[in-house]
């Protein structure tokens, strides 16, 4: 209690104490669905202002991890979930984390601005005020002049930026991005990655970012978590100490290549495991 009060008094300017206390902490988190164990004793911490990326073979429980952190799914009893220094249930995180799912999931009957303010509206911010706030943000998201367009009039990249703006406007300590650029073509994706880093550096949010793409994970993250094959846990935690701001050509730097080799090796091992267990299941069934 005393410690909690002290951190509050030091204010939002990131002091040493603040940095020392992780924003989100998962200890021995397990989640089973009937027979299937999706996550097994997963440990992870995320510090304030950190950009953490998660990679892993398909079906490794990444989405389950996200759903737990977003408050949509309750982990099995026994694990510990701590947010902002307090132990909590997953359900307590509903409305506390700004979550961006894989697809943009824009509502087709709302124009760009009204889609962007959806979360604010749910929160109870008056519509006019929320709209004004969104309008100020439009240029930064490359959407100036598009405020009255509807989703079907936008390109894939623009739709994704509207969804990101919706996530950014919902100002929460932690942003969860679930493969936000997975559906985009390679060029648009590269552009969006650089743009996301710019915006992140300006607003200094804490981001947990799921991806399939090792390059993306290294390029964006301060730290990369590699997940094991199902049941999922953290196999490897790799700090990315590449300088920021990161230029696009950094992907050819020797240090980048070295990190990529380490990560690919770890993922490869897990992919083989999950492939083998799938084949075994096929043979036995």
């Amino acid at each position, binding site marked *: 209690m005393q410690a909690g009060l002290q951190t509050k008094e030091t204010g939002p300017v990131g002091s040493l104490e603040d940095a020392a206390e992780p924003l989100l902490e998962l200890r021995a988190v397990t989640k089973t669905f009937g027979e299937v164990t999706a996550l097994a004793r997963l440990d992870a911490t995320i510090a304030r202002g950190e950009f953490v990326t998660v990679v892993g073979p398909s079906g490794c429980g990444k989405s389950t991890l996200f759903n737990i952190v977003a408050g949509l799914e309750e982990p099995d009893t026994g694990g510990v979930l701590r947010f902002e220094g307090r132990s909590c249930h997953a359900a307590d995180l509903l409305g506390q984390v700004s979550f961006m799912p894989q697809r943009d*999931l824009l509502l*087709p*009957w709302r124009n760009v601005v009204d889609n962007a303010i*959806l979360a604010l509206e749910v929160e109870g911010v008056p519509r006019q005020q929320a709209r004004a706030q969104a309008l100020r943000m439009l240029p930064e998201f*490359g959407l100036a002049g598009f405020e009255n367009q509807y989703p*079907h009039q936008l*390109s894939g990249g623009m739709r994704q930026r509207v969804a990101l703006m919706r996530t950014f406007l*919902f100002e929460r300590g932690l942003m969860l991005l679930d493969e936000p650029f997975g559906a985009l073509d390679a060029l648009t994706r590269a552009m969006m990655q650089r743009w996301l880093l710019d915006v992140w550096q300006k607003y200094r949010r804490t981001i947990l970012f799921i991806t399939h793409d090792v390059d993306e994970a290294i390029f964006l993250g301060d730290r990369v978590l590699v997940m094991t094959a199902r049941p999922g846990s953290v196999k490897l935690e790799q700090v990315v100490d590449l300088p920021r701001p990161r230029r696009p050509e950094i992907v050819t730097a020797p240090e980048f290549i070295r990190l990529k080799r380490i990560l690919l090796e770890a993922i490869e091992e897990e992919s083989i495991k999950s492939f083998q267990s799938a084949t075994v299941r096929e043979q036995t069934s």
Partner: protein
Amino acid sequence: MSIDSAALSLSSRGAAGRPAPWHDWMRKAVRLLLGLVIAAVVWEGAVVLFGIKPHYLPRLSAILAAIAATPQAYVDGFLRTLAETLIGFVAGGAFGVLIGIAFFRLRALREMAFPIFVVSQTIPVIAFGALVVLWFGNTLLAKAVIAFYLTFFPVTVNTLLGLETVDPRQVAMMRSFGASRRQLLLRLQLPTALPQIFVALRLASSLSLVGAIVGEWFGDTTGLGVLLLQAMYTENVVAIWGALLASALLGTGFYACVAAAERRLVFWSAEQ
């Protein structure tokens, strides 16, 4: 090239592909009018040319002349039937949507009551009409109730169907924003169901007119159904056709209004 200019060039291409809406609308109206004129000419011409007896098909001009001779009866009948249709339609639509929502929310209620709803729809409307007249007498309300009876069921079914098409990922997203059940319903589920609801409302617009006209057959003094019945008893073929044309005008006009409302409110589903 920046992101902005790429997007701009994309959207301007989309705009150029579409003709101006006003121009488009005019062309459609002119074609519709032309079609009606041609149909009228064919009707009139066929009756004269093949010497069809007025007992089977009177000339269009004779029917229009008969309507012009006693316009008040048709205007009164039109307005009365319109009122019955509208009340039944609005009540049936609102009730259908509400029950659809209730069935969606409460599975137990749905399993209890849905079969009863289905059974209610298998009763022929004529049999049900007799009961309604016993309850409400020969009033405007009685006709509206029969229109309601034909209207609410399709709206209930489609509301339920529409609500069930909601993407669970969108529900998850709204929940992660901290949305309450009410916010979920108003901001996500109902708008998602709207296209389906309108499919049923278009159907209901025709059904409610049928209900009103059938209701009038149980006894009344004004209404298009009354005009039809009187003409039938007196074997006045011209008057039957007059009442038919007036009913067609009412039915088409009402359907067109509902369809126009649909185009305005559900603008996104046609363009996706």
